[in-house]
């Protein structure tokens, strides 16, 4: 059975490292894996999405509406933007951080303040302030690893394996911060 995970966020938030980590881990676990992302224009502060699919045999690299088992969102508005891609019984893990898109900045429209509440009424949402947890771990840039720690709760892969994969994708001088970020995400309780 193929599992489908989406990583969504704002260009520049570090989703590339998250998908690299996840891809490496799943290959090590012996799965067939496909990871798909779009480079280029969308990196410049725009909405970005990465598809990760794994199983015994994976064909398509992309995920369609109603097909994601889990969506990891680096920003709460992005969680709402991509919710249509979630399976009926899927889970959204989202950072509660708010990043205003340009139409909000220019005043053309407003940031929907109650978006998380509405989202929680519709689907299963696991929300956490990943930015604060990342700062607690030692770097605001570790938001991606906090969220990966949270994802680890959803997947049937032991934490030691995550740690091994993390050591492969993160430079040694940043490993302690990232291990702490992972642990804070994993152990976060409301």
């Amino acid at each position, binding site marked *: 059975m193929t599992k489908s995970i989406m990583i969504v966020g704002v260009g520049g938030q570090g989703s590339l490292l998250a998908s690299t980590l996840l891809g490496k881990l799943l290959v090590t676990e012996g799965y067939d894996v496909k990871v798909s992302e779009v480079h280029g224009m969308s990196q410049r502060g725009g909405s970005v999405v990465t598809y990760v699919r794994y199983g015994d045999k994976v064909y398509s690299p992309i995920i369609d509406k109603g097909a994601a088992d889990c969506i990891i969102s680096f920003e709460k508005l992005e969680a709402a933007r991509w919710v249509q891609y979630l399976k009926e019984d899927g889970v959204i893990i989202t950072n509660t951080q708010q990043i*205003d898109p340009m139409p909000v900045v220019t005043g053309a429209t407003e940031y929907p303040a109650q978006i998380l509440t509405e989202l929680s009424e519709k689907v299963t949402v696991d929300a956490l302030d990943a930015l604060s947890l990342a700062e607690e771990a030692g770097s605001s840039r570790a938001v991606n690893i906090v969220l990966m720690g949270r994802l680890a709760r959803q997947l049937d892969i032991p934490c030691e394996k995550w740690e091994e994969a993390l050591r492969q994708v993160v430079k040694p001088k940043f490993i302690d911060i990232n291990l702490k970020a992972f642990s804070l995400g994993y152990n976060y309780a409301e």
Partner: protein
Amino acid sequence: MKELLIGNAAVARGLYEAGVSVVSSYPGTPSTEITEMAAKYDEIYCEWAPNEKVAMEVAFGASVRGKRSACAMKHVGLNVAADPLFTLSYTGVNGGLVICVADDPGMHSSQNEQDSRHYAQAAKVPMLEPSDSKEALEFTKLAFELSEEYDTPVFIKMCTRVAHSQSIVETSDRVLPEDKPYVKNPAKYIMTPANATKRHPFVEERTKKLTAYAEQADINREEYADSDFGIITVGTCYQYVKEVFGDSVSVLKLGMINPMPVDRIRKFAEKVGKVYIVEELDGIIETHVKNLGIDCTGKELFSNIGELSQLTVATAFGMDMPEFKSVDTDVPGRPPVMCAGCPHRGMYYTLAKNKITVLGDIGCYTLGAAPPLCALDTTLCMGASVSGLHGFNKAGGKDTEGKTVCVIGDSTFMHSGITGLVNIAYNGSNSTVIILDNSITGMTGHQQNPTTGYNIKGDPAAKIDLETLCKAVGINRVRVVDPYNLAECDVALKEELAAEEPSVIISRRPCILLKNVKTKPSLIVSESKCKSCKMCLKLGCPAISMHEGKAHIDPTLCVGCGVCTQLCKFDAINEGGQC
């Protein structure tokens, strides 16, 4: 060894394993990583050429000398290289020559979604199309064998979903082909009419031989099942078909899209009965199948606009859409924006403020078209801003000369802006050209170019001096401004537009994302001084927004460029610690 690689890295690995000696390319999404990854292998000479035509001609020269060579480009880059392509088909090769072209259905990062398969047919050049990274590696190696065996350049055709999707590949060692000496051969390599007349029949004969190859080649593959219909498909669409149907439907997967087999398709159609064609963009396979007199269904079911997916395949075959939830709230869009501290912003603000008509070009600076700057009037193709401005002013005369400019990046100017500038000088239009020199090829992810002083490996290289170059083609008025200095931009713009001769303004400051560019501490808004006039918002800087009625600068984004400080009439924006 098993590795998870994006399709482009797999092509690069294929180039390495095939023993390629020379790779020359111009960056373009989604093709760029092919050459970037190839450059990591010290055994391959790699370079960024000024444009795709030059790149393909470099590959041609290396091939004639007897080495395996390649070039890579995006679909629209192939338009630029079309001139050498069509005659390269006639000359054929000495060392194998592979042209990697990456299409962008859905236009994730492109100005159109043309289908490169038309070029393979028009130029009579074989084209292989992988459906994942494993095939990208294998097909690339095969392409060199076919190139040498059939004396032809060979296309590897990628698309965004294959180029930028990671899947598992099996790597092996590099094998160097035997050295092919260069032997003078005018009848093959000098394409005068007398010689080309003799080469054209060779090309037609070659296509027949390649069609015979397609009839038995393993890269075209029948997967028969107990179904009352069959699907012919190619590339990433094969994956969508398999995702939907698994092994329950008969499939003819074409690994080679030009030339296509004839007998095999007839046989497949006879066996399966009803034939469906699943392909992205144009109905290339469908036309071929219909020309064989075989009834089939393709574009009636599948749009020739945008990408397909497993869902479009499933619904086309009458399956239900899956259930999904959505929010009732209108979710604001999040378009890409110019970065905080982007050096283009100051010049764009100046152009917008002065209500200048701006012919634009291809690059990060196309983002200046978006609100609130709305600074652009046209974007067509690489280099078209400069030549288009000349035409605009020739048509408009005095009406337009004093209030129209073009903007073009440093890399795009070297690609094909320079020829437009030669035209401005030679045919004398009173045009004002602005080169947005951020010292890098930005949008495609920071590639070096002839103006940066570094080569693809990051080693020092000859640096083309833009001022000298512009003067050399006959432009007398060439000046350099700092786009972080709004007053300087304003004066330069007004003076050059008023001048009675063509001029070039070089707006020079390196891309803020470059590693060697030092940023300053974030600026801070003094809430007591801020009068909420929103002047600073006119810059469209992602670091500036309104919070509780006052301007606010996001300290994680601001790089202290100081452009907003110059706009604030109330001195409310200051360096950290000053307010």
